[in-house]
């Protein structure tokens, strides 16, 4: 693994990577846009597109890692290559021509933005308007529709998270450890444009400010940190609560270092200012969120659940129930597990190993490193434990929320772990080779798990123009007295996007229940669907619904609730009239005969 002294080899390597990026861009340009709902974004491009993307990312990261040995600044080219490829990947919904991306929460957040557009005010139930206000500001400045701008925010935030991750590791670690951590900077990239995800993408930036502020005690940085935390409170409450936990861990680590229980490689920062940042955050949090009874109620429920925990409804219970009920094959379990949680497994393993090494070194009375390294180790442990708690106990929010933080701190420590291994074993070449293998695995899981798809037993989050038009037609023309049954669409979400989350009228209230649709439309027991109902109903089916089972569960046909034959039979069922069709979205009128 020789590197030329002037780094020319690295630059040519980077040039090769940029060549791959150009091929990716050409493939994107030449591939026709989606003409309707597509079950998987991964199926929209040839297999080699994804292979080239992973390869280009690996090349970019290799250039960065080789910068450790070369000592040049050519690692910048690697970082630029990574950002370029990530940029292409996170904006795929635009290349596909999707009108929107996100079939549930995202649509409601479009509605929140529409509320502000229509009234000129933040609606009373909008508890985290910062995200919507940023979308609206961008929409006004660029001339794009807010829904198009909203989809872009996840991509913008992802790119920003990579940059701020690099700034953070540069602030915390020496050059070598920092560069070795850069390949793990993709830990947070996401394509879901919702306030929580976006707020998570800001965490490396806030941590960077926090580290620099504690190191330098510069008032400028403190001001920037204060503003950032203030804004983050209104971006999302859970993100700030978890950040407060990080600050608490820092406080404990600092106290341990100051009292000599942990030794230090550098001076331990003293307390800063008369008004600690954490207190400012808590005060802002209380002032803002206590205005919202729903939030208070949700926290009360979480508190009660913690007091008397139960496993029912938890992720653990849900997973074990699914496995027991459907007996999925081992291959499927491994594939889904690898793509959903492979990244977490790798990062937690690397971070965990390093944490163990730190603990062992501390026990043996060797140096414990810096306060920040201790903080990262402590935060990794805390959020891993919290993930486990949220996994076992139903606390309203899923275990994925603390798990993201555990992954982040695992990623922050991964570079230091690589350096530690290489330094201890003195087998730099072997360790670097292992690092490339690990990074390649990480990139494969991160790339193929980036978008929800049948690979991870999830539906493509594409929203089609036909679905929006169909939802609007249904809401405008229906008899509001008759119930709605739907499959493949959540009409109330589309209502939010079309009319606003809180500004829709009484005529636009939507209540629906998919569970009321009998399996196989009741044809296993009755000649007609209408025989299952006493009164008239609307039934909405979409292309996403019609392909749901065969695309997500192709090998589990015995568990399918509906099959193509059932959909075809609807057309000849004398109790079912078809009253709207746009190729994507169908509205049926069911005449109850029971």
């Amino acid at each position, binding site marked *: 693994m020789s590197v030329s002294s002037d780094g020319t080899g690295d*630059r040519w390597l980077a*040039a090769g990577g*940029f*060549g791959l*990026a*150009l091929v990716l*861009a050409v493939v*994107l340009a030449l591939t026709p*846009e989606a003409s*309707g709902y597509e079950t998987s974004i991964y199926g929209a491009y040839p297999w080699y597109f994804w292979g080239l993307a992973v390869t280009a990312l690996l090349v970019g990261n290799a250039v960065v890692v080789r910068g450790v040995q070369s000592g040049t600044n050519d690692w910048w*080219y690697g970082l630029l290559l990574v950002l*370029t490829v990530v940029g292409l990947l996170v904006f795929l919904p*635009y*290349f596909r*021509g999707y*009108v929107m991306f996100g079939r549930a929460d995202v649509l409601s957040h479009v509605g929140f933005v529409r509320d502000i557009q229509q009234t000129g005010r*933040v609606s009373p139930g909008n508890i985290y308007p*910062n995200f919507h*206000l*940023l979308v*609206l*500001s*961008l929409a*006004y*400045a*660029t*001339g794009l529709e807010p829904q198009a701008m909203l989809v872009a925010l996840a991509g913008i*935030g992802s790119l*920003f998270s990579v940059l*701020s991750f*690099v700034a953070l590791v*540069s602030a915390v670690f020496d*050059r070598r450890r*920092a560069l070795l951590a850069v390949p793990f900077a993709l830990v947070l990239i996401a394509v879901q444009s919702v306030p929580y995800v976006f707020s998570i993408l800001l965490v490396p930036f806030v941590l960077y400010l926090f580290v*620099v502020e504690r190191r330098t*005690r*510069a*008032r*400028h940085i403190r001001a*920037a940190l204060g503003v*950032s935390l*203030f804004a983050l409170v*209104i971006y999302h409450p859970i993100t700030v609560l978890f950040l407060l936990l990080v600050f608490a861990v820092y406080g404990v680590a600092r106290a341990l270092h100051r009292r000599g229980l942990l030794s230090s490689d550098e001076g331990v920062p003293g307390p800063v200012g008369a008004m600690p940042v954490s207190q400012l955050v808590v005060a802002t949090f209380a002032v803002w969120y206590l205005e919202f009874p729903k939030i208070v109620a949700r926290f009360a429920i979480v508190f009660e659940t913690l007091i008397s925990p139960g496993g029912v409804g938890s992720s653990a219970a849900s997973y074990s129930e699914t496995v027991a009920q459907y007996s999925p094959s081992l291959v499927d379990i491994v594939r889904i597990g690898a793509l959903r949680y492979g990244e977490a497994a790798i990062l937690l393993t690397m971070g965990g190993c390093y944490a163990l090494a730190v603990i062992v070194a501390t026990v043996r009375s060797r140096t414990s490193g810096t306060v920040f390294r201790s903080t990262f180790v402590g935060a990794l442990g805390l959020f891993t434990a919290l993930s486990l708690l949220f996994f076992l106990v139903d606390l309203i929010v899923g275990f994925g929320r603390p798990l993201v933080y555990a992954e982040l701190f695992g990623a922050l420590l991964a570079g230091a772990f690589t350096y530690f291994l290489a330094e201890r074993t003195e087998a730099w070449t072997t360790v670097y080779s292992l690092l490339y293998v690990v990074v390649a695995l990480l990139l494969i899981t991160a790339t193929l798990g980036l978008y929800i798809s049948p690979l991870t037993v999830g539906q493509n989050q594409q929203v089609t*123009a*036909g679905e929006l038009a169909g939802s609007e037609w249904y809401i405008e*023309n229906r*008899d509001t007295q008759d119930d709605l049954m739907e499959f493949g669409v959540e009409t109330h979400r589309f209502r939010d996007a079309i009319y606003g989350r809180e500004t829709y009228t009484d005529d636009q209230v939507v209540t629906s229940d998919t569970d009321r649709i009998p399996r196989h439309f009741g044809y296993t027991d009755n000649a007609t669907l209408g025989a299952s109902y006493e009164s008239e109903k*609307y039934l909405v089916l979409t292309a996403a619904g019609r392909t749901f089972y065969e695309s997500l569960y192709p090998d589990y046909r015995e568990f399918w609730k509906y099959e193509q034959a059932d959909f075809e*039979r609807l*057309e*000849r069922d*004398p109790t079912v*009239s*078809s*009253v*709207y*069709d*746009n190729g*994507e979205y169908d*509205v049926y009128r069911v005449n109850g005969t029971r």
Partner: protein
Amino acid sequence: MARGPSRGTSVGSALLDLAVVGGIALTTYAIWRLQVNPLGPGRVVVGGAFVLLGPGYALTAALFPREESAVAGTGGRLTLSGLERLVCALGLSIVTVPLLVLFLNYTAWGITPSSVVLTLLWFVLGVTGVAAVRRLRVPESERYRLPIGDAVTEITGTGPATAVIGALFVLSLAVAGTALATTDGGQQYTEFYLLSQDDETGDIVADDYPETISPAGSEPVYVGIENMEGRQMTYTVLVEFHRIDTADGERSVTARWREARYETQLRDGAGNGTAVRVSPPESTAGDRLRLTVLLYKGSPGEAPRIASAYRSVHVWVDVPAGGGGL
């Protein structure tokens, strides 16, 4: 992760970056105000920079006018690298912009396009002004300058590999940007539907469809078409009665009667609703006949069937008395 700044001497070069930020802000405002967009898709880039870079860049420049800042009270020094300045510019924009707009929520102006654009414009210009003053007050040797000279030297003076990287990077962005700028939303479709008249209110709704149609009388159904195909379309609509019987457990069409046929031409984005009066012949009589309305692009061909239709909708009706078929 080192950076070696090159130093210019003129005030102009010292304030070049701030002038660019101000220029972006004024350009965005001008495009918004005049409703004329000479930049085409470039407006997205300029407008995006105005919101995501401008406020934070101005704030960072105002907070750190020096290459290296002395930290009051500690005797320490703080130097922000180029990467750190970029991160601060982006991050501070992302946290500042929503707070500024949220402030408007509590004012009489409210959150409108003009209040948002003007607030951001004045903020960027104001803070940029403060940054310029602060920077000019700093001794020239300590003044922060955007290291453009270094970047140019880096690109032009380090051999062919760097030039190839630069060319491929620009080309990749150009290809991807062109692809993005030419997307048209992808999906083309036609909405096709049936409505009926509410007996009580007289409104046209997706309810109260006719259930019985006597051969002696007639019932109106409203056939709607909305053309979203991205071009002008000619459609043919066929209205048929289908008798569907069960044989060997399978229900299939055993007889069909053509009731009406018409053509309509619609430009992109246009729609029409046609009240079709259905008067079934005596021969159609029977229970639960399917009144099927088929939509074809252009001509339906010699023997049109549901399978060859572009869209189809139907309701079920009883037709008293009679029998037979085509």
